[in-house]
């Protein structure tokens, strides 16, 4: 059966339809081709033709033309619409025209660099021209680096390597910088939040170095669908860009189905498990020979899904694979290739596959659980979608409140824009990390413009670094004067440290199974955890925390383990405090601790709890900055205990959603914690912590915009169409009788000094 037949069958299956809350159909679209822009080197056109590309799509032609005309472009088109061609053509054209010409490609991960390198290499082979392309990252052998610096026409790297390996040694890259024509930034949407703010500063530094060598390269950016691609590109590159979104690629018909598993106990609101329903759906698709991708929300989830799917299919384990972070690079390459060639029929993945790794286009996608944001939901669904044939995407909701809200309010999803990607290159903490690096690369001249920043601000920051002793001013020029190597002390990404290596000791000869990051380790590979890898269960015999090694033995048991983290905040230093009406606002330094506490053993299939154990591991901690809000004793008493608790949780949730709008950061850059009776303040308190060691200044900013944030929070809650609270305002509510929404509004009114005179009115409602 092909996808169309499967769709027809599902459409006529009343049992299936009974659980469908919405079924959206997108018409197929034919490709719109145009001629190659006349300027392009004929050798390049011929090579593309041999590779089966006789004419470009409209968006490709637009992007190429604009690039050749000297404009910066940002391409935002659907998955698999041939975005790479938009930059490979102008870049190769410029090199064919002038063999001295150079280009720099930036990808957010090493795996992507590798992927693109391979593709580019094939095109170059076809060209039969002397164009040298190299990846330059942490894995590049030292012996090869010299040749790359001297002779590489196209250097493929990542922002981290640019930051710590290339820019601080720019004189060794003289040839590249003097002749740099194009800078390609792919997966632009990835550069948001703190990471994006860092990358924006790395690009500002890159621009300074280019200026030194007299080069003015053009940017070509590509992004997945987000609300604000032009703004993001502009903030990252510091330059105006032309948006190219006249997608001319062909698209087959697409079905997007929201599926809510049937209730098995109406009263208790228990539904059939999303995992089981997703697995069943995937098995049906695989049985009909529909190549399918299944997305799970976490690593453990994907492994459970993989096991379930494999159990009920005729396919061999080689044809149904798992794919997530923690698999070794070679294994991932092999799976990607299997998917492209069609030998792998089904794959169960985490969002590791959201990024543009090339796995070809699949016929069906099953999203087991809501991925969390509109943008990533569209990206996961977009993994299914071929140019000519029909594709199917099914979102299977789980029983969590958020999923239930989405599946029962599909318009909330379909009618809204995907989220904006926000960055703030002038974030003081990020800036203060990069200015020393920039001064190390080239001394700052007086009145120099750093990115789009006001020179007065830059000078002020430089003066403050001068006082700290890392820079020295001499005749109006600021020199790096702080010792060794400032880039080393600055990590662009939060939380990437030494991974825990998982070692399989089932056989006498140990082998490395995979790895996991140190933050996931306490919940994933603690002692006695059942760790799943490619569907095989492993019992973690020992976790050696000092050596960052976990030892695992293959087992076959009927349960898996699930551990949870407990967050805690303790205040280290109170930087500022102010009383605003019935609440106090503060900001200062805090210690945020995460401790794994216990784990549960859960039976595969029935999901019943069959035991538990404790996790004996040191808690992890992070010193950061936080803003906190404390409710006065009097107000807490007036509200009453239960409403206080409900409104505190409600406010924590709404603040977590609203605050990023004011901070121009990603929601994940904040961790909010509420305490009904905080050990530090002794009163109900909400902490909003910078999710970044040392903080990036969100807390201080929140302290300043306190009232505006609360005002926006009130508007959001008050304006929400729901009755008693939902995920889009005060958070998922399981007990409507708590009136969380109403109480949250009351708390907000009180803090904003609006009305709060008659506590009696609260009891009866507004």
């Amino acid at each position, binding site marked *: 059966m092909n996808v169309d037949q499967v769709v027809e069958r599902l459409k006529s299956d009343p049992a299936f339809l009974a659980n469908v809350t919405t079924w959206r159909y997108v018409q197929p679209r034919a490709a719109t081709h145009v001629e190659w822009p006349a300027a392009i080197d004929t050798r390049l056109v011929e090579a593309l033709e041999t590779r089966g590309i006789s004419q470009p799509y409209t968006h490709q032609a637009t992007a190429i033309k604009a690039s050749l005309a000297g404009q910066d472009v940002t391409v935002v088109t659907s998955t698999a619409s041939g975005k790479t061609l938009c930059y490979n053509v102008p870049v190769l054209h410029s090199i064919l025209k002038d063999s001295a010409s150079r280009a720099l490609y930036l990808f957010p991960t090493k795996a992507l660099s590798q992927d693109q390198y391979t593709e580019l290499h094939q095109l170059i082979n076809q060209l039969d021209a002397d164009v040298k392309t190299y990846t330059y990252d942490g894995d590049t052998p030292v012996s090869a680096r010299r040749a790359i610096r001297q002779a590489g026409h196209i250097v493929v790297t990542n922002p981290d390597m640019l930051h710590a390996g290339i820019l*601080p*040694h*720019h*004189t*060794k890259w*003289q040839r590249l910088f003097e002749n740099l024509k194009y800078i390609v930034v792919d997966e632009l949407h990835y550069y948001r939040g703190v990471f994006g703010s860092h990358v924006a500063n790395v690009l500002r530094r890159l621009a300074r170095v280019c200026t030194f060598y007299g080069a003015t390269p053009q940017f070509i950016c590509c992004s997945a669908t987000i609300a604000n691609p032009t703004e993001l590109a502009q903030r990252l590159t510091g330059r105006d860009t032309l948006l190219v979104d006249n997608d001319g690629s062909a698209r087959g018909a697409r079905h997007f189905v929201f599926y809510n598993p049937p209730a098995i106990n109406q009263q208790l609101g228990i539904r059939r498990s999303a995992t089981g329903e997703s697995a069943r759906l995937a098995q049906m698709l695989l049985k009909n020979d529909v190549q399918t991708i299944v997305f799970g929300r976490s690593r453990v989830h994907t492994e459970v899904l993989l096991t379930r799917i494999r159990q009920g299919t005729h396919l061999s384990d080689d044809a149904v694979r798992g794919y997530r972070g923690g698999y070794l690079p070679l294994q991932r390459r092999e799976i990607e290739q299997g998917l492209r060639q069609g030998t792998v029929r089904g794959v169960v993945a985490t969002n590791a596959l959201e990024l543009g790794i090339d796995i070809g286009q699949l016929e069906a996608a099953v999203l087991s659980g809501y991925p969390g944001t509109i943008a990533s939901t569209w990206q996961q669904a977009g993994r299914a979608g071929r140019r000519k044939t029909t594709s199917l995407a099914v979102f299977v909701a789980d029983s969590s409140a958020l999923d239930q809200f989405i599946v029962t309010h599909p318009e909330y999803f379909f009618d809204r824009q995907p989220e904006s990607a926000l960055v703030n290159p002038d974030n003081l903490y990020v800036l*203060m*990390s990069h200015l*020393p690096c920039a*001064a*190390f*690369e*080239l*001394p700052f001249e007086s009145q120099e413009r750093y990115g789009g920043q006001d020179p007065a601000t830059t000078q002020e920051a430089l003066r403050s*670094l001068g006082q*700290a*002793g*890392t820079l*020295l001013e*001499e*005749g109006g*020029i600021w*020199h*790096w*004067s*702080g*010792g*060794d*190597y*400032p880039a*080393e*002390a*600055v990590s662009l990404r*939060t*939380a990437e*440290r030494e991974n825990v290596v998982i*070692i399989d*000791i089932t056989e006498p000869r*140990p082998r490395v199974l995979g790895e996991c990051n*140190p*933050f996931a380790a306490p919940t994933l590979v603690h002692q006695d955890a059942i760790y799943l890898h490619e569907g095989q269960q492993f019992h973690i015999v020992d976790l050696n925390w000092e050596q960052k090694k976990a030892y695992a033995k293959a087992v076959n048991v009927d349960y898996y383990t699930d551990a949870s983290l407990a967050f805690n905040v303790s205040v280290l230093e109170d930087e500022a405090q102010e009383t605003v009406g019935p609440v106090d606002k503060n900001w200062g*330094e805090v210690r945020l601790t*995460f401790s794994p506490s216990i784990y549960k053993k859960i039976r595969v299939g029935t999901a019943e709890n069959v035991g538990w154990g404790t996790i004996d591991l040191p808690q*992890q*901690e*992070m*010193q*950061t*900055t936080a803003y906190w809000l404390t409710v006065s004793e009097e107000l807490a008493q007036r509200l009453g205990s239960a409403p206080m608790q409900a409104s505190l949780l409600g406010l924590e949730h709404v603040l977590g959603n609203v605050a990023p709008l004011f901070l121009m950061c990603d929601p994940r850059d904040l961790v909010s914690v509420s305490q009904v009776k905080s050990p530090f303040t002794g009163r109900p308190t909400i902490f909003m912590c910078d*999710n970044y*060691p*040392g*903080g990036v200044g969100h807390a201080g900013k929140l302290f300043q915009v306190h009232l505006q944030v609360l005002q926006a929070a009130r508007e959001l809650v008050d304006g929400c169409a729901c009755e008693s609270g939902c995920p889009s305002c005060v958070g998922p509510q399981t007990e409507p009788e708590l009136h969380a929404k109403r109480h949250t509004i009351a708390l907000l009114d009180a803090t904003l000094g609006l009305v709060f005179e008659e506590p009696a009115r609260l009891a009866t409602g507004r």
Partner: protein
Amino acid sequence: MTLTVPPRESIQPFWFPLPPLVGVAAPLEALVEGESVSTERGAFFRRRLSLDVEESYGTCRLGDFLRIRPPVAAALSRVPELCDVPLNSVLFLDTETTGLAGGTGTHAFMVGLGYFQRVNGDERFTLDQCLMRTYGEERAMLTWLAEHMAQFAAIVTFNGKSFDVPLLQTRFLMSRMRLDLGEWLHFDLLHPARRLWRLALGSCSLQQLERHVLQVGREDDIESFLIPAIYHQYLRNGDGRYLARVFNHNRADILAMVAIASRACSMIDESPEDAGAPTTRPRLSAAEQVGLARVFEQMESLDSAERSYLAALAGVLTVDLRVRALMGLAGILKRRRRHDEAAEHWQAVVDELPAHSTQALIELSKYWEHRRKDASRAYDLACQARDCWLGGLSRAKRRLPGLASFQRSPSPSAPDDFAHRLERLDRKRRGLPIEEDQAPPDTAIGSIV
């Protein structure tokens, strides 16, 4: 989310205030006898010292360097072109820097140049120590350096290939000046020094070398790692007291380079002592002899290598070095087709140091197979070699559970090699035919040499 990066650390300077000195602060110019040198791009500070070539540094005289025969320097440095360079036209170069990690933000704030020069008919050793007293003086200093350095044909450094030269090239480029130091003939002492002395000393820093090879103990020296901090502090408070000591440190480093170069060259100079080279050959330790023998081997001077190995074996050596010396010597004897003598040395390894005898047993097995035509004995020896290797493996495993650490010799393909060899020898001792291509490659080499 990693564990505690203290929030403000990243913007603090790495350096700490240096311990205060007794007495009062003084400007550098009052402490160091030097002059301000003017160029078209401003001025910088320079101290010029002129030393008698009879002056000695440790056990060497400076003038010893001039008695080195250029072919010896060429052989040791592996820069053949040095054969044609008169040694009084080489430049000794050592920089002091504002940081130790390199990169575009690291300055060479002091550049020391040492060279031989005739002054009024006398051979002298001149030392020019250039200092930028501010960042602004860098261009002046580089301008003078570019002009002055152009007079020399070759440079001698210690680790200059990976440190001083790239750093200076970066400085020239940052100041938009061109001086392609990469094109120069470059005698980097680090690599020959390592070949000669690493076995004896372990670490091969210049300070380590001068202490053990030249018997110099520096007085009142400053630790190299403090030098960047000294300069940063000088820029801020103008007190020249610490910086004055950097001049002496730089002077000592350059003189040590001259002495180490002389010493290393004299060690490998095989010319008769009277050929105008009255260099007193110092007594070498047994460990130095092993290093020397290996250098001779690389230079294909087999007579000298043999002599050094024999000298080494006559002295006291660690187990590791003794195995190296015996195996090295046997290897040379084998190449010279003195198979019976070679076998005696392999046998010595087996008798004296059985735990380290895998390679020796393999060699003995080959010897009995090909020279003595005794396949049975060769087979027994190959069995012993395999057992010895396995024994080494299990010892290694006991030390490091879970990790297979191999003995130095046989390659990681050893299990296959052993199986292959044993099978062939087994067929041979039982008189069965052996395929042609299974003849061991080393017999071919043995017959050529």
